[in-house]
């Protein structure tokens, strides 16, 4: 099967308008005859469910949380980008488009990114009208701040809880539609599989997390907005329940998985302190507007700090290495996430890390507090400083924060065409769960933008392209296709509780997470990936022989929920490593140690980059890697979507 991205013809800035004009419509009286399933109620899923219901479609929306308001979009702190140019600092749709393509290290699909930049402004208008309390200036107009990878201030924010406020806006729109009868909401309901009828996705099988009952839901189209797979590493900034099950099950039913190796390691998280730890906490990138990142210049000083003989205040100004400002003078502490994370790893590998484990760097507000006063810093970041103090017991107004990179976001996801349809007809994928807009690295404040763009503006238009060719209401859950999948899910649940082994689910998840972090984490090599590919099937076999899932398959059973997700991570981890192994280059969040610039590289000699920077190989790898499932444990088949760059010139990505 060849990949058809269905990118519309015509100039870049007219493709979306033209596509909407050329696409079929469904007349308002007919929309109510169609049922659409939306899995996930975060920014992408919630926005899609509410918007589709407003248009007249019958929507069924599912989430595993106890309320759609708790989806993990809620945890986004810093902000949302838009090309409003309210600051008169030279921003435009083209600049946002350009920054996003460059920030993605030239591995995103240009046409999708341009559309994202085009609809960004309407998102801010919509959210403001819904009552999202964005930060304002004294004149009553909206305020902006800066984020990594951009030299303009285009980020809108609501204190340090922009994600929660945008999600509440979305959730309130969803509840409005629930009250009007356009959306039926199924909280505490986990999607376990996709059901295909005649090759098209026509429903899902779910597990009711209260009764344990396995049930089917039929529809005319299915939308997955189920987030990313960062929890394959066990430790990440994701919520505990975030999982890959929906995406993996779709993959096993024929949806190609694109670029799974692109994982974002966020540079500013609270460092790991022990093996009891269940998750990592992000400190918003917005802190880098005012915080300065440093480690001691000397290893002796770093050693003294680690052992408690010195404190950061003892290190003289001249003995500090503000390494981001030194290496990337024009972006400084606001260098993009992938670049900043690698730089932190580099100084820690050099023995200059400051946390007790050696894996930590300072984020210091001393200069900002001296310049602006503590009150201004408290107004900007108060809740983040409070969060830091609660977790670490340190007061960041008095002593610098310690931070270290942690798994945060996954750019890879199900392959989708311009209409956000996967390789399975009728199955669509939105938000973090798809692959299309962020390339190999996502810029800060772009995830919220993409989730809402997909949900509010793209899918309401593009779903009609599929539905217009379908006769509505022909599918019912008593069809054999549904019964078969229900039976499979039932058997899988029962198999998990019947292993009755001697190891807990978490112990397997932690083992897998460590393998992934050590071998497919911030730095990867051919050797490490081959090692991971050997170990993952061993852990998976061990899991199915020795896992202990107490309790029964019916009723509330948190261990069973976890076990089903971990079982799927154990299958998914392999395709991630295959992808990372195949991509013999470094780009964005994918850093292969074999491919970096050295002292001898001509580009280093000419001064256009520095040793240790990512070496992209456009001649060989300027494509999307879309993987086709071939069986558990079998090597997936690679399909390539070649990327062309007509509007943005392929170049070494420099932030110096």
């Amino acid at each position, binding site marked *: 099967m060849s990949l058809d991205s269905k990118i519309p013809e015509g100039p870049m800035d007219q493709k979306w308008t033209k596509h909407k004009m050329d696409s079929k419509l469904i007349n308002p009286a007919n929309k109510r005859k169609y049922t659409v399933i939306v899995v996930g109620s975060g920014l992408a899923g919630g926005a899609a469910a509410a918007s589709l219901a407003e248009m007249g479609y019958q929507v069924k929306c599912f989430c595993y*949380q*106890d309320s759609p308001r708790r989806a993990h979009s809620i945890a986004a702190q810093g902000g949302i980008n838009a090309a*409003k140019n309210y600051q008169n600092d030279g921003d435009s749709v083209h600049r946002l488009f350009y920054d996003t393509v460059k920030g993605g290290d030239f591995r995103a699909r240009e046409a999708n990114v341009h559309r994202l930049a085009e609809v960004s402004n309407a998102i801010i*208008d919509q959210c403001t009208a*819904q009552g999202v309390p964005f930060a304002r200036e004294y004149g009553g107009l909206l305020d902006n701040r800066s984020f990594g990878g951009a030299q303009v201030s285009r980020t809108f924010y609501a204190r340090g809880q922009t994600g*929660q406020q945008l999600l509440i806006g979305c959730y309130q*729109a969803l509840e409005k539609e629930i009250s009007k009868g356009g959306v039926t909401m199924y909280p505490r309901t986990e999607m376990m599989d996709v059901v295909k009828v005649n090759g098209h996705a026509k429903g899902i099988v779910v597990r009711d997390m209260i009764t344990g009952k396995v049930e089917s839901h039929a529809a005319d189209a299915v939308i997955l907005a189920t987030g990313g797979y960062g929890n394959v590493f066990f430790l990440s900034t994701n919520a505990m329940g975030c999982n890959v099950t929906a995406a993996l099950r779709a993959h096993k039913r024929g949806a190609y998985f694109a670029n799974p190796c692109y994982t974002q390691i966020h540079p500013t998280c609270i460092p790991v302190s022990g093996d009891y730890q*269940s998750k990592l906490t992000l400190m918003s990138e917005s802190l880098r507007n005012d915080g300065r990142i440093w480690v001691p210049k000397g290893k002796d000083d770093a050693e003294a700090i680690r052992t408690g003989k010195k404190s950061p205040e003892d290190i003289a100004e001249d003995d500090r290495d503000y390494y981001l400002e030194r290496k990337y003078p024009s972006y400084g502490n606001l260098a993009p996430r992938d670049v900043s994370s690698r730089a932190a790893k580099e100084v820690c590998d050099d023995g200059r890390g400051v946390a007790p484990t050696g894996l930590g760097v300072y984020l210091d507000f001393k200069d900002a507090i001296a310049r602006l006063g503590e009150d201004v810093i408290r107004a900007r970041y108060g809740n983040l400083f409070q969060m830091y103090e609660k977790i670490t017991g340190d007061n960041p107004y008095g002593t610098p924060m310690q931070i270290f990179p942690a798994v945060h976001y996954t750019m890879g996801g199900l392959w989708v065409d311009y209409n956000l349809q996967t390789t399975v007809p009728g199955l669509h994928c939105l938000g973090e769960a798809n692959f299309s807009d962020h390339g190999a690295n996502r810029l800060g404040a772009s995830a919220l933008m993409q989730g809402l763009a997909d949900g509010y503006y793209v899918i309401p238009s593009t779903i009609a392209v599929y539905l217009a060719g379908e006769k509505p209401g022909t599918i019912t859950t008593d069809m054999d296709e549904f019964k078969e999948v229900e039976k499979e899910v039932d058997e899988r649940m029962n198999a998990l509780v019947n292993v009755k082994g001697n190891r807990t689910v978490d112990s397997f998840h932690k083992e897998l997470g460590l393998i992934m972090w050590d071998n497919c984490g911030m730095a990867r090599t051919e050797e490490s990936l081959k090692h991971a590919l050997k170990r993952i099937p061993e852990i998976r076999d061990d899991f199915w022989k020795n896992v202990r899932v*107490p309790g029964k398959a019916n009723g509330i059973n948190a261990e069973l929920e976890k076990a089903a997700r971990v079982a799927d991570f154990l299958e998914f981890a392999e395709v991630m490593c295959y992808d990372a192994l195949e991509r013999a280059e470094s780009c964005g969040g994918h850093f292969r140690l074999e491919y970096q610039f050295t002292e001898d590289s001509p580009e280093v000699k000419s001064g256009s980059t520095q040793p240790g920077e990512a070496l992209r190989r456009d001649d060989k790898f300027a494509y999307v890697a879309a993987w086709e499932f071939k069986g558990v444990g079998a090597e997936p088949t690679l399909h390539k979507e070649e990327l062309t760059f007509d509007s943005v010139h392929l170049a070494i990505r420099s932030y110096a």
Partner: protein
Amino acid sequence: MNLTLKVWRQYDIQDDGRLETYDAKDIPIEASFLEMLDIVNERIINDGGEPIHFDHDCREGICGQCSLTVNGIPHSKEQGITVCQLHMRKFKDGETIWIEPFRAKAFPLLRDLMVDRSAFDRIIAAGGFIDVRTGSAQDANNLPVAKTRAEASMDAAACIGCGACVAACKNASAMLFVSAKAAHLNLLPQGAPEKDKRVLGMVRQMDAEGFGNCTNLYECEAVCPKEISVENIARLNRDYAVALAKEAAV
């Protein structure tokens, strides 16, 4: 550190619940409260038992899913945090800790420490929104909002819908939640057209769900992890009186 836990265990709504005792030995002092429960649960499973069920998700104080009453106080006695942000360094070695669910008639118990808070969703569906169809909004800067007003709205909007306010109240009143959700929208010019309808709808749904009445004890404010002010309750009472009077006049 070593602790003794007294934990509420109840298989389902039909089951009579009981407090059970667990030894929590060798708990790292840096662990969070929920990580302490993770450790205890690992040991329970290894010993052949069924783990203590509790709701949690983001573990960074924003999703509002965690809901434990610690030593009689929702989210514990520490101010301005959810229980997932509570760390063991706040306890003394050898302490006994009582862990119970968020108790209220309108929050039926599901299992152990998990309760059903879907009543909150139904209150929002009864009017806690601004009816603006996707695609119909004007430019965001066409409607300036005074910074003080926007900040007051944001203060109310910080509510994470956890339900601690209800659990802390001797009447199990949801007034702090409902008033915060209403104030978030009522304070903004965007929220003005539907203000009366919103207030009447939300208050009536709140009553229908079986929450108690507010008797101004302000336990809700004291336990709120986002420190939402009871000023919102005064606002809601005023707005409700006005809306009722207008309704009667029609």
